[in-house]
Structure formats: structure tokens, C-alpha cells
């Protein structure tokens, strides 16, 4: 089997992956698979060249890798931050949104649809679609709409339609279902831009490849800045796109590297929510830790780890961060955890909020609440020195979208390091 065929794959990652979608979508999935192979894997018509150019000139790649001086001191190790928060739109999400919108254009599609949870994928898609002059509709759960109003504004301002999804709890899961329905109706003219490394093949592989620059840059920048690869890379995992994006160059050594990239430890930090315990009765998991506590199932087109009850009904997940609040996870990540290549860990809501404030105050970077989970892992670790000398944390996004949510969630808790809140509540400042 040639390198190329191996990369192309069959959409299976060990026992995970596959294409569990309605027949009506299968032709589109096949067409997309062909396009993925032709344009992404083989750079047909110079697709990848244009993609990389637009990532640079529109997206702002490469993003920096920067030393976190205060955190390094705090943990006694060298902490470096990969700054996806500086990508256009404020999160890693644009890598994928731009890649898929561009691919849709190469495929002759006329319309873009996407789901969104936190609104980050939706805003990224709206921006990419506007940039490429394509009409765009975003499905978003009603509850998320209320939690992430600024992102709703942004999508509308970028000219996208935002379609509220009222079914169920009104979060990401329902938005995905609804987008699939749209796609099943409009599949001939429309491309569905999935927001993470989930869904049927070729999405998990394709989305990972669009996010791969994170990893390639981290490799190069680590060598430039401290002369070698890091000992560990830490990223938060919702669907897992920022995780697989920054892990991907370390999971195989296909570039013929001298160094053993597989020596780099990889940590996927899930949202532990309020507790890892599950309320089977009500079908509620007060967390989003599908890698740590989920079981094998089929969700949204792929076999993977999911939060489900004994019948196989998908549970309501929970996280203080909308972007991690999802009952499934990418099949490749599930596989890498099974294989022992990636460590799945988790931190709870409180720890994430504290980490949110810690990074803001110590480094002058307000992280997304999703990202705060990755940072909390360092704090929660009994002995960070065990992680190694150089640790890279993926700052998957900025926290501007989370200001109101973070303030609200902070107000109700007794956090060690939160700023005085009264000033926000109209007394001090209004």
C-alpha cells in the first residue's frame, strides 16, 4: 500500500468512522470524497496552493507560538501557547471553514449550510462564505443563540442567514440534525460545512487536514524557538478538530522526519462539566466527556464514542463552554485514545473558569471557555513537571464571545481568582 493510499484511507479509524447517512446523501458524500482526494490530497487545480494563500492573507496564518512567561514560572516548566485565537474570526475554526467553502466552490456548489454550537464555527463559515462570495445559512439551537448573542450578530452582519432550531434542548446536537435535514433536501447544489472532525467520511479526515497547519507550524516553530519538538501537546476536545489539527503531525511520521514525532505526548482535555456521573434516568450527562465516559455508538454519520443511555439514546451533554457541549467526538480521536497514542483527560466547569481568569490575568490573553479546559489541565495536574520540559497548549480561540457567559458563570461560584464582579453589574460602572 503506497503512502498515498494509506493517507487516503477508507474512512475507518480502527473500529470507528464510516458513513452512516441517509441514502439521499450518499451520492454527495461520494462526490465529496472524490473532491477531497483530488483537490486536498492531490492538490488538483492548485487547490491547496490557493487554500494556503488564503489562509495566510485572509486568515492570518501562521499563528504565533509564544512562551507564557507567568505560567512557565507557575508550573516550573516551559509553557508555550499556540495562538489560534489570533486566526481571523477568533478561533481555529476558520481553517476548516475556509477549506470547505473553497472546496465547495471548486466543486461548483452554489450554497453553504452549516451548524453551529458556540457560534464559532458558524461565524467562521459565514466569514469564509462571504469572503468567497457564496450564500450561507447557519443552523443554531435556540439556547445557544441566547447564550452566544454576539456571534449571532456577527453571522448576520457577514450576510449569513441564521436559522434557529427549536427542537429539543436547542444546542449543537439539534443544530447538526437540522443541518443534515437541510442538506438532504438541497444536496445537489449545497455543501454542508461540518464544524469538527465528526460526521461521515470524508469529513473527519478532511477537516483534520484543513486544520493540519496548526500542527505543522507547531513543529517548525518549536524547533525554531527551543530547538526541538515539545514533550507534550495539550488541546481541548469537543468534536476534536483543534485537537486533531494540532496532533496530526505527531501521530504519524509520514513526512520522513528524522525525529521521532511519536515521542510527543498528546493530551485531549474534555469538558468534565459539573460531574462525570450520569443521570441515566433523565438521559442527562452533566459533562461532555465522551472519550472518558462514553461508549461506542453511531452518531451523526460515524461510529465513535458517544454519551448514550443503555438503549442507545443519545444523552444531553453539558459544559460551561458551548463549543465543547457535544455528546460525541471525532472517530479518529476515539481511535487514537483506544490505541493509547492520545491520553483523554478532563477538567470540570470550575477548573475551566479559573483557568479562564488565570490566563487573562497572567498572560494578557482572554481564552475561549473551550480553550480554558486545556489550560486547566496544567493547573489540575499534580506534578506538571511530569509532562516534560516543553509543553505546548493549543489556544483554540479567544474569549470575546464568552464575556457575558463567563461573568454570569463566575458570579455564581466561589472562584479563587475571579475579578470583582460588582463593577460589571451596573453598580461600579453603570
Amino acid at each position, binding site marked *: 500500500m503506497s503512502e498515498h493510499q494509506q493517507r487516503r484511507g477508507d474512512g475507518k479509524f480502527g473500529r470507528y468512522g464510516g458513513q452512516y447517512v441517509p441514502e*439521499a446523501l*450518499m*451520492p454527495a458524500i461520494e462526490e465529496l470524497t472524490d473532491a477531497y482526494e483530488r483537490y486536498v490530497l492531490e492538490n488538483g487545480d492548485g487547490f491547496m496552493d490557493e487554500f494556503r494563500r488564503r489562509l495566510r492573507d485572509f486568515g492570518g496564518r501562521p499563528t504565533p507560538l509564544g512562551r507564557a512567561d507567568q505560567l512557565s514560572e507557575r508550573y516550573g516548566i516551559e509553557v508555550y501557547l499556540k495562538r489560534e485565537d489570533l486566526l481571523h474570526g477568533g478561533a481555529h475554526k476558520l481553517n476548516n471553514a475556509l477549506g470547505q467553502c473553497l472546496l465547495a466552490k471548486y466543486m461548483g456548489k452554489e450554497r453553504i449550510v452549516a451548524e453551529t454550537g458556540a457560534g464559532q464555527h458558524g461565524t467562521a463559515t459565514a466569514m469564509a462564505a462571504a469572503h468567497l462570495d457564496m450564500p450561507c445559512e447557519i443552523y443554531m439551537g435556540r439556547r445557544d443563540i441566547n447564550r452566544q448573542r454576539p456571534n449571532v450578530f456577527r453571522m448576520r452582519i457577514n450576510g449569513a442567514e441564521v436559522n434557529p432550531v427549536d427542537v429539543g434542548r436547542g444546542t449543537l446536537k439539534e443544530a447538526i440534525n437540522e443541518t443534515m435535514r437541510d442538506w438532504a433536501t438541497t444536496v445537489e447544489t449545497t455543501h454542508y460545512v461540518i464544524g469538527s472532525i465528526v460526521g461521515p467520511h470524508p469529513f473527519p479526515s478532511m477537516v483534520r487536514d484543513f486544520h493540519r497547519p496548526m500542527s505543522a507550524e507547531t513543529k517548525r516553530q518549536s524547533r525554531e524557538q527551543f530547538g526541538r519538538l515539545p514533550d507534550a501537546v495539550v488541546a481541548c476536545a469537543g468534536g476534536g478538530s483543534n485537537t486533531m489539527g494540532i496532533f496530526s503531525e505527531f501521530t504519524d511520521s509520514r513526512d520522513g522526519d528524522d525525529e521521532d514525532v511519536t515521542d510527543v505526548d498528546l493530551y485531549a482535555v474534555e469538558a468534565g462539566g459539573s460531574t462525570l456521573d450520569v443521570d441515566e434516568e433523565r438521559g442527562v450527562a452533566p459533562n461532555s466527556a465522551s472519550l472518558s465516559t462514553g461508549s461506542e455508538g453511531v452518531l451523526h454519520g460515524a461510529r465513535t464514542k458517544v454519551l448514550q443511555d*443503555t438503549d442507545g439514546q443519545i444523552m444531553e451533554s453539558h459544559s460551561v463552554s458551548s463549543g465543547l457541549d457535544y455528546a460525541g467526538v471525532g472517530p479518529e480521536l476515539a481511535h487514537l485514545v483506544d490505541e493509547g497514542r492520545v491520553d483523554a483527560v478532563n477538567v470540570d466547569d470550575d477548573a475551566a473558569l479559573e483557568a479562564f481568569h488565570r490566563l487573562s490575568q497572567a498572560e494578557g490573553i482572554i481564552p475561549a471557555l473551550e480553550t480554558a479546559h486545556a489550560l486547566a489541565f496544567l493547573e489540575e495536574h499534580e506534578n506538571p513537571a511530569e509532562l516534560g520540559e516543553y509543553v505546548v497548549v493549543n489556544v483554540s480561540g479567544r474569549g470575546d464571545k464568552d464575556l457575558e457567559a463567563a461573568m454570569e458563570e463566575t458570579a455564581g461560584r466561589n472562584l479563587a481568582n475571579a475579578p470583582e464582579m460588582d463593577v460589571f453589574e451596573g453598580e461600579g460602572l453603570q
Partner: protein
Amino acid sequence: MNGDPTPSTLLPDGGESRIPDAFDGEPAFVPYLAAGDPSYAGADCIELGLPFSEPIAEGPTIQQAVVRAMEGGMTVERYFEFVSELDVDVPLVCMTYYNLIYRYGDAAGPEPFVERAAREGIDGFVVPDLPVEEAGPLRAACDEHGRDLVSIVAPTTADERLRRLVDRSSGYLYIQARLGVTGARTSVSGRTAESLARVAETGTDLPRAVGFGISSFEQARDVIAAGADGVIVGSALVDVVAEGHEEDRPVEETAARLEDLGRELTEGALAGAETGASQAD
């Protein structure tokens, strides 16, 4: 993946699927109902929905039915109990999503579900999120237990793919009348006729039932006239049930309305059969 196509005539012993009989003779009327809804007499075959939390192929009507059923405490166990108590003498097709089939029982894989379903009197399965590529294990389990696995043919299914799909189907072919999700519509896509013609070209013996949006006499008539062997009616019936729920109607009244609508559609189908026959002359 199971490489052997298994036409419905090749059923192992230990109880046979009754589905082939349902399409013998006059056009079949195949209502879709959520388990627990008032049962329906007059059907030639019943698709009985087992609700899944992520009904990605359903329109609003059936989504709401799913929510209703799940809030009403529907579980896989109760579904099977309901099936076993059901007092009808037509074939039953379980319509659900793959995860419920896959997760059932102690061992991973679809076999325990199929085994139990067969035991309770289910004749076959329609699984909207299971394309032929992923259907191997379920197909194997169905073969083992003499059940049918119905394939959906979409308007977008190209000819080559259609052949593969026809080869691996049993029971009947579910011809999807239009793109999109389930839900009652007023007209039937011109692509239905096209699909039926394309299926005919494959030379398959499998009956063709048309579903997605069938809700009226005219629609039933038209699809049968275009060569279908039956009509599958889901959302139109579920709407009647939903209305009954909303307006707190007695179960008998809803059942009577279902019967009326069923009769209208059956008559439409018969009318279509006549047209079809005269056109064929």
C-alpha cells in the same frame, strides 16, 4: 461486510418474513406509525417507528412524534412489548436508526436486536441512516433470522449505485419520492416516476413502495399509476395523531380519522392501479 446479496425469497427457516405477501395483488397501503400510536386496520404492511433521539431523516411532524414518544417513556424494551401485544395480521417493519439496533443487548452489533425483533414478530427493517456500505452486519443478522432489510432508493441514487442497492435489498424497495426529509407535501416530485422507471430497468423483482410526502388521494393515485406497488404514508397519518393529542380527542375518534385517511389513500392507490393498467394496455 456481507458480500452475498440475499433476495427476500431466500429466507432461512425459523419463521419467515411476511412482507412479500403484503405486496401480492392490489397496491399495498403501508402506513408508518410511531409505536404507541392508535393502531391501524386496513394496512397491508405497517412501518412501526422506534423513536431515536437524533431523527436526522425526519421532518417536523415525525420529530414531534419522537419527542412525544420519548417523553411518554418509550424505550426499546417497551417497543418490543408493544409489538408483541399488537393484534394485527399484516407484516410489521421496524423503522429506526442504527444506533439503537447496534447498541441493543450485551454484545455489540445488530444481532441481538434482530433476534429479539424476530421473536416479537417484526418482519423487516428500514434504517434511514444505514446506507448499503455500512449494512453488512445488519444484513447478516437479518439473513440469520429470516428478516428483511429494506433499502431506500433516493432521487439522487445514480444507476450504478442503484444496482448495488437493489442487489442487497430484500422485502421491498423504499422509493423516496423527493429529496429532503419525511413530511406531508401537496405534490409528488416528478423524480418519483423517474426513479420508478430506473428501478424497473434493473429488472428487479422487488416490490416498490413510494414514500416521503404522500398525503392525498391524488398522490397515491399518481405514484401507483407511475408503476409503484404500494404507498408508504407517514407524516400525514402522524399529523392526525398529533392533532388528536393536541385537541385531547378520544383515541377512538383519532382511530376513525386515521381510518378515513387510510381509505382515501387506498382508494387513490386503486385508482392509480387502474390508470396504470389502462396505460400499460
